[in-house]
């Protein structure tokens, strides 16, 4: 049943379910039979039976939509009929046409594809049972992590396999570019939303009413990606709140008794889009989704992508979460069909909930041994002895386990075997030669310029980083404390307040790069202390936090883990202070930082390739904007960045290990 314990202290010894491989049966029985079998999922107990077409009528005739239509009509002077027609067109473009025959087609085709691509597709069946229960009790919202295009096909495939109600899925409009595939997806339950429709009242009204109608009627579970888009870095992205607001509102307005949010963690051993992402981050534009592009992807079919793990988390009851946090009776004094901006209390609740759900997704991400190896390799870019790598991987495994990582380590296999088979699966990223393991750098075609060589190397570093990134949520908090201790040690200040200040600075700085729940700084600091003490890396006599004799490897690993981020942010700061011209526009920012970094690397002054990632550049800028060190000013059609060089400079200093002496500085930041 829905968990109430979301807000309780995180339990480092999380109890997790076991997995079943759903491909096993597919390998032993007919796919056709499977695709044609009787499909009779349990439904929500309060469901009003309803066809996809009736849904559209309900939406178009709803008080909510009628109100907005009249409003838009009054504002624009256009007749209501015309606006109504517009609404109907929007809905037509948006709505799904869930059809069981299409689903069966996908069931068949995906069975074939999955068996070729993957060794296993593992699902926690207890999670499926919990979900089945939840679907009957309350409207359910499925919230999977988003790392690949595969995600939502995979989700529907799994739900079909377990005879669960198929979800309707909010998908980005870009899929519509692929004509045939777009329609196929529509018939398998996808509905399409424009990427941005900021000011369009009518669009928003149609969209939100469409989603809410399906939720209230219990038509089907609603699925969307909290992160809004695929994470190119394998780090979870800062959640987007729009859709979450929409699905939670019916609860606040009393239209449904409760809504259950189900966090789902989809972990890929190898992501199909792996090198594509790295290139995209380096500035090669994202290929437009097209059917032919997808067909070219057939090449992909000849490769081994290891396993997928899908973990259905404990359903989270919005009602229990909101208990004592949101006073629902504040909704009593306003007609429910008139759209209104959520109240502050509600906004912060939804924001908080979004972060918690993403953290729950992170918690149940399955990590493969390669993730640990990649973390070590990135700290030894010049390569390392296989034996050393093996030894350190074993050490890191112990550390990860004691920090409650969800590690999928093969049972009873000798470590050397585990390491070598990981290397084999990821032979595109790392190779062994002469007993040394090092990153593979894309083979050059003909003569290459130094920039091209650098670019090739950056692709492999970023690809590798996307694996290391998967473990970051496990180590993040103690690692930030480790960095804070390192900084403090250099300025001989290890007592609490200074450490906490430093930790909280880093926490603030990195809160675009990592999932750090707003307002949790103190709790995260305590968790970091607890974990480091627990693993014996530090002791806490009275006011101090002191490294123990055995703490050295842990702390230095943690420092190394965050080093690329510290360095990357510093490069950005340096660029803004030293190079950025007056009138730097937002558009110019990324290419400019990139070429600044390229120069530094080529000159041998920088060894950090990760700063070339547009993701890091954006996050660093967002942090500086948040801290008011940079401001955005709109001049004509251009957004210009105004840099407060003093502030940026001092942030650079702190990142570089100079502990801020004046508290005033931090306060101002």
């Amino acid at each position, binding site marked *: 049943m829905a968990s109430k314990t979301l807000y309780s202290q995180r339990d480092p010894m999380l109890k997790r379910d076991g997995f079943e491989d759903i491909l096993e049966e597919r390998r032993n029985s007919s796919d056709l039979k499977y695709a044609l079998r009787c499909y009779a999922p349990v439904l929500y107990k309060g469901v009003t039976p309803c066809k996809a077409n009736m849904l559209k009528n309900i939406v178009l005739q709803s008080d909510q939509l009628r109100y907005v239509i009249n409003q838009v009509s009054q504002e624009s002077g256009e007749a209501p009929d015309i606006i109504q027609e517009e609404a109907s067109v929007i809905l037509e473009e948006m709505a799904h046409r869930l059809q069981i025959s299409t689903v069966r087609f996908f069931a068949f085709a995906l069975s074939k594809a999955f068996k070729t691509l993957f060794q296993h597709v593992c699902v926690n069946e207890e999670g499926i049972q919990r979900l089945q229960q939840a679907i009957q009790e309350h409207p359910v919202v499925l919230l999977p992590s988003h790392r690949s295009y595969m995600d939502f096909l995979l989700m529907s495939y799994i739900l079909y396999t377990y005879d669960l109600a198929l979800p309707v899925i909010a998908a980005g409009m870009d899929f519509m570019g692929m004509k045939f595939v777009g329609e196929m997806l529509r018939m398998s339950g996808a509905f399409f939303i424009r990427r941005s429709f900021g000011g369009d009242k009518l669009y928003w009204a149609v969209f939100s009413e469409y989603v809410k109608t399906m939720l209230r009627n219990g038509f089907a579970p609603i699925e969307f990606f909290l992160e809004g888009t695929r994470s190119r870095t394998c780090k979870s992205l800062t959640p987007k709140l729009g859709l979450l607001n929409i699905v939670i509102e019916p609860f606040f307005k*009393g239209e449904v008794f409760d809504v259950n949010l189900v966090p789902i963690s989809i972990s890929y051993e190898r992501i199909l889009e792996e090198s594509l992402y790295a290139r995209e981050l380096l500035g090669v534009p994202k290929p437009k989704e097209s059917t032919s592009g997808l067909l070219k992807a057939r090449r992909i079919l000849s490769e081994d992508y290891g396993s997928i793990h899908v973990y259905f988390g404990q359903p989270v009851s919005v009602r229990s979460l909101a208990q004592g946090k949101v006073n629902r*009776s504040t909704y009593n004094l306003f007609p429910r069909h008139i759209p209104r901006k959520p109240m502050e209390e509600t906004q912060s609740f939804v924001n908080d909930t979004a972060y918690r759900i993403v953290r729950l997704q992170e918690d149940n991400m399955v990590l493969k041994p390669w993730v640990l190896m990649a973390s070590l390799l990135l700290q030894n870019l010049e390569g390392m002895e296989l034996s050393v790598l093996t030894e350190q991987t074993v050490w890191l495994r112990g550390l990860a386990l004691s920090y409650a990582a969800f590690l999928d380590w093969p049972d009873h296999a000798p470590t050397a075997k585990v390491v070598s088979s990981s290397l084999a699966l990821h032979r595109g990223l790392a190779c062994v030669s002469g007993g040394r393991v090092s990153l593979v750098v894309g083979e050059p075609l003909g003569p290459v310029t130094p920039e091209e060589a650098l670019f090739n190397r950056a692709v492999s570093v970023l690809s590798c980083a996307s694996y290391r990134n998967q473990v970051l949520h496990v180590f993040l908090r103690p690692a930030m404390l480790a960095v804070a201790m390192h900084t403090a040690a250099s300025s001989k200040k290890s007592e609490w307040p200074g450490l906490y200040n430093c930790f909280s600075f880093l926490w603030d700085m990195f809160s675009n790069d990592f999932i750090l729940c707003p307002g949790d700084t103190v709790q995260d600091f305590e968790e970091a202390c607890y974990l480091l003490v627990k693993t014996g890396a530090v002791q806490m006599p009275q006011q101090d936090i002191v490294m123990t004799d055995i703490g050295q490897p842990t702390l230095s690993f943690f420092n190394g883990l965050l080093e690329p981020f510290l360095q990357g942010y510093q490069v950005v700061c340096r660029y803004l202070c030293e190079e950025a011209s007056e009138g730097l526009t937002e558009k110019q920012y990324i290419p400019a930082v990139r070429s600044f970094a390229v120069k530094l690397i080529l000159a041998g002054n920088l060894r950090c390739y990760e700063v070339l990632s547009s993701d890091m550049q954006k996050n660093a800028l967002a942090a500086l904007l948040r801290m008011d060190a940079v401001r955005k000013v709109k001049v004509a059609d251009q957004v210009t960045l105004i840099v407060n060089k003093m502030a940026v400079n001092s942030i650079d200093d702190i990142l570089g290990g100079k502990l801020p002496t004046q508290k005033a500085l931090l306060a101002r930041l």
Partner: protein
Amino acid sequence: DTVLAAATITMKLTSTVCFPRQEIMKWNGWGYSDSKFLFNKKGQAEFTGKRYRLSGMVLPSLQDWFENTFGASVNHKSPATPALNASAVPPASLNEAFVEDLKATGIPFSHEAEDRVFRAHGHCLHEIFALREGKKFERVPDMVVWPNCHSDVVKIVELACKHNVCLIPYGGGTSVTSALECPPEETRCIVSLDTSQMNRILWIDEKNLVAHVEAGIIGQDLERLLNESGYCTGHEPDSMEFSSLGGWVATRASGMKKNVYGNIEDLVIHIKVVTPRGVIEKSCQGPRMSTGPDIHHFILGSEGTLGVVTEVTMKIRPIPEYQKYGSVVFPNFEAGVACLREVAKQRCAPASIRLMDNEQFQFGHALKPQVSSIFTNFVEGLKKFYITKFKGFDPHQLVVATLLFEGDRERVLQHEKQVYDIAATFGGLAAGEDNGQRGYILTFVIAYLRDLGMDYYVVAESFETSVPWDRVLDLCRNVKERINRECKERGVQFQPLTSCRVTQTYDAGACVYFYFAFNYRGLADPVHTYERVEHAAREEILANGGSLSHHHGVGKLRKEWMKESISSLGVGMLQSVKDYVDPDNIFGNRNLL
């Protein structure tokens, strides 16, 4: 010693005159002692006595319904303590000087345990449960006093002020808000002021159609006496057999036929109240005034915290020429609510219109008396067939609206047609007068049924709210669901019964009435469990846009939500009135604020 002996004698003398209540009424349950439900030796339910239409009848389906609904069994009894255990009653702590002065006035009083206990409670579940279990009482009134008229009340209040005695007005004793409970922290002598002897109609003014009535009169007597002159007030709350006019004023009562006659605030023209500061009344009987905020509205709903209502001038109407019951069956609750909403919109509600949900519909059916003729049986069967098979209504979804029309015959028939036509547009089928009337009978016997339940490990209670039309369905669903959930979470072993009806309609909303009952076998403290669930249900009501109360009042049961309901400034306004009118908290029942 002689003083005490004399006092005892006075009481003995007066008791036969003054205390008819305990003799004909139950001390630990609802209503008349001679009327109760029981399962006879054959396991069939019957209703004893001669007072009601159901009296003396066998109800063949009740046992099945009871056992199936609650998972109860007629073999598992939880009988009540047979008689009041006087040792469980704390001794009276009397204010001797007050008693002395009171005696001089000649107003009868008593400090017998039975009299005091009888007036120490209303009819909340926890109150009745405690009586049945023979639990020790924490605090009961120390004495009971029976004023005979307005000036007696003036004297009593003066003496109470003089000797700092706490007064708690007592009318019909049908409170369901813990309003009559004595505050345990009260250290002064508590005197229950029983208004039952002030029960006369003082005059009837046929020109203006008003009657001037003493506030202690109970509803059925008021109607009977007015009927003798060809009039009625038309104010018929479900408790009208026992509740008093003063009580209605003090709680802002609502009657079943308010659509024709209005609620109590619409019916009163003039109120006389005795307070510690003196008597409040208006100087004329103008039908409406613009003289600042209406002081009647400080009195209406004051719940005995400001003074005693002694006399009320009230509107009366000629007895209607014709009355007709009716009923409509709807395929589901949603359709029924939509229909009631439309009826309210067209402002054509009959004297009473109520929509019972499916659970209550089935409950009503369980109360059908044995049918004597085969023919009636056959007709019933045919009706059922028509509705469920021919019209395709799901027997587990269908709901019934009960109607009561009043007026001259022709108009009633016209009105009836209008309402049935509206109902038809919502899929409603006329289902006969009988079904309608049975619905209203249920109202009067439901409290007796609770006593039956308590004999077999079932506790039950009702509560109400008012809510805007657009939220009626959501509120009903969410409150029921909340109750079911809370019961499960609190270890109730059996599925509870949650049922509701839309019991009054207004232009802008409706009054919703809930019944809630469960089998408490296996629970250590059923009353506590019950109270927690009711508390949760009330929070759910408030979160869904429902009010704290439509007509039961606040009492002490719902005080905690007053601030939230009327704002702290609002509470402050009420408090300042209280502080002005009753600075020494003589009327210290601590209701409301």
